[in-house]
């Protein structure tokens, strides 16, 4: 698209208007043709994303008796536990995302600095957990973390603690379990973006007198931000919809939004009750993502253009 508009400015004199008109018509034809080519995939997106979400929204506006009502939304304000669940969901998502960044960034950095062969062996260990079911991994954590589990019995045997630590059936259990499951979703995009960072840039920085810390802080870190941002967004959004791990590791004390949706749908025997929860989560998530895009996106592109 930018090529014709650049051409528009080139010709001068009387022929300019005529030429411009023809070019504009050409551009219009071109974009129509593109649209026609895109239409199968646009239709697919419409059919499997827009329609169901619209339907979800529509369903959320009806009560049990099938009458039009806002009762499904009013419930959030009437009952404190919905707000609490909502806050818990975002709290868990922030903590888990933070934990994933703290663990994942150094890991991805190490992987990106290793020789290719060693890196691919290490990557297998990152991807390995993907091949085991989430349910199995969650139960495994339960075995490790519970009161008479591996960690507590080792620590007690070693005399480090006298009373077992509460690691499972509470927030810490949920965070540990979810961080383990979601870590690869952060490491993989981050590693990919770190691999594309031009080492010449780092060498140039060193050449100009920057120490390793300054090179990392001023060159490597800003260049890795786009990868970090996409990893963070994936992890954060996946956290918001998590069900199995909080349901099993939370001991019924960490209720997340997806669990509440399940409870609400079966309790009210009405899809609308659950749909309303889905709509609220969707809207808030989109708003947060927009904010995220604006904050990190601006910084990332800022780095790009300064380069």
């Amino acid at each position, binding site marked *: 698209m930018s090529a014709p508009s650049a051409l528009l400015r080139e010709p001068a004199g009387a022929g300019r208007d005529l030429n411009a008109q023809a070019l504009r018509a050409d551009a219009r034809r071109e974009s129509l043709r593109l649209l026609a080519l895109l239409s199968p995939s646009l239709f697919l997106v419409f059919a499997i994303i827009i329609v169901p979400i619209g339907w979800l929204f529509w369903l959320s506006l009806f009560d049990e008796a099938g009458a039009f009502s806002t009762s499904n939304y009013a419930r959030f304000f009437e009952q404190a*536990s919905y707000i609490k669940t909502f806050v818990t969901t975002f709290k868990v998502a922030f903590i888990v995302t933070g934990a994933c960044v703290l663990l994942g960034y150094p890991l991805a950095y190490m992987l990106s600095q290793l020789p290719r062969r060693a890196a691919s062996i290490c990557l297998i260990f990152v991807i390995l957990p993907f091949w085991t079911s989430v349910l199995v991994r969650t139960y495994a954590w339960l*075995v490790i973390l519970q009161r008479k589990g591996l960690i507590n019995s080792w620590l007690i045997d070693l005399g480090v603690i006298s009373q077992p630590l509460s690691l499972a059936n509470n927030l810490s259990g949920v965070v540990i379990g979810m961080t383990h499951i979601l870590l690869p979703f952060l490491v993989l995009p981050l590693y990919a973006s770190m691999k594309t960072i031009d080492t010449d840039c780092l060498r140039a920085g060193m050449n100009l007198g920057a120490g390793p810390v300054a090179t990392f802080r001023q060159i490597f870190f800003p260049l890795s931000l786009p990868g970090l941002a996409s990893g963070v967004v994936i992890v954060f959004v996946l956290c918001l919809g998590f069900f199995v791990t909080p349901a099993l590791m939370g001991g019924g*004390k960490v209720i997340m939004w997806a669990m509440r949706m399940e409870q609400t749908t079966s309790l009210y*025997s009405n899809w609308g009750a659950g749909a309303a929860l889905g709509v609220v989560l969707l809207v808030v998530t989109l708003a947060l993502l927009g904010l995220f895009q604006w904050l990190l996106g601006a910084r990332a592109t800022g780095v790009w253009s300064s380069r």
Partner: protein
Amino acid sequence: MKTINSLGIAAVAGLMASAAAPAFAADTITVASWGGTYQEAQTKAFFDPTAKALGITIKQDTTNGLDDVRLQVTGNAVKWDITELGADECARGSKEGLFEKLDYGLIDKSGINPKLVHDDWVGISYTSVVLIYRTDVFGDKGPKTWADFWNVEKFPGRRALSSSQATETLSVAALASGLPIDKVYPVDIDGALKSVDKIRGHVDAWWTSGAQAMQLVKDGEVDMASIWNGRAGTLKKEGAPVSFSFDQGVLTADCMVIPKGAKNKEAAMKALAMFVSPQLQANLPLYVDNGPVNEKAFETGKIPPERIKDINSAPENVKKQVLQDAEFWRDTLVEATEKFNNLIQQ
């Protein structure tokens, strides 16, 4: 009760495959239950003998409860001819008009508690909520009543209660506040919630499935818990250091219904009549800890006397327990559950 044991599903599938269909059988009905060891037991106790006696084929499926039935009936896609539900679900579904009327000319209701005999649903078996404690922590001096369970000074230790079965936990809470078993119903919901409020700070885990309750006790994550008697019995059989009794148990019935629009209604009615008959009911406790709903089953002589004392619905044990009132919960379930969730999620 509502938990489906996936190992059991495989076993049930195996049974289905091996169930030989008589060549002349005109009728095939589909029965859905909870799956797992419970449905395996039902297969041996009810389904196989009925199929043989009536010369029909009984196919099996598993259900997740009332939502499944509602989807099938409202969507005009009824797959099942008979399905099992919790009694409160039967009462709710009945109010919504999801079931066919039952023919009590065919089904003999004598011996079944009248509270579980209705126009369009009938009881099928009993589960009890009981108090279990670990004997390696308390010896034989563990908490025996729900008031003991609530007494955190006298019985220090970690505790678990059910959050998914709010109605059962509210009944337990009412007992803990000192009400005698015949005064629990109708439940004073606000009073029961006050009782829950006293204990909730001391509950270390709220369980949402039978398997979870079992695991919490088995691994010593908690020292005492409310638990379904079938799970408690399994723990004991596996040799876990636990003790439980039917004192102050909460007796919860399961029921069976014919979904509205079932394709083989007549055959289903005959099969259901067989399922609740004393002879087949007496088979159930031979395979599983869920007690028969028909008390005449205990008079058939099929159940060995030493087994009878361990069955939750044996007349001696019924006297010690509170029967969950399905019709009471039909009208109060939603409000009570929301209040309960609000309280424990604070």
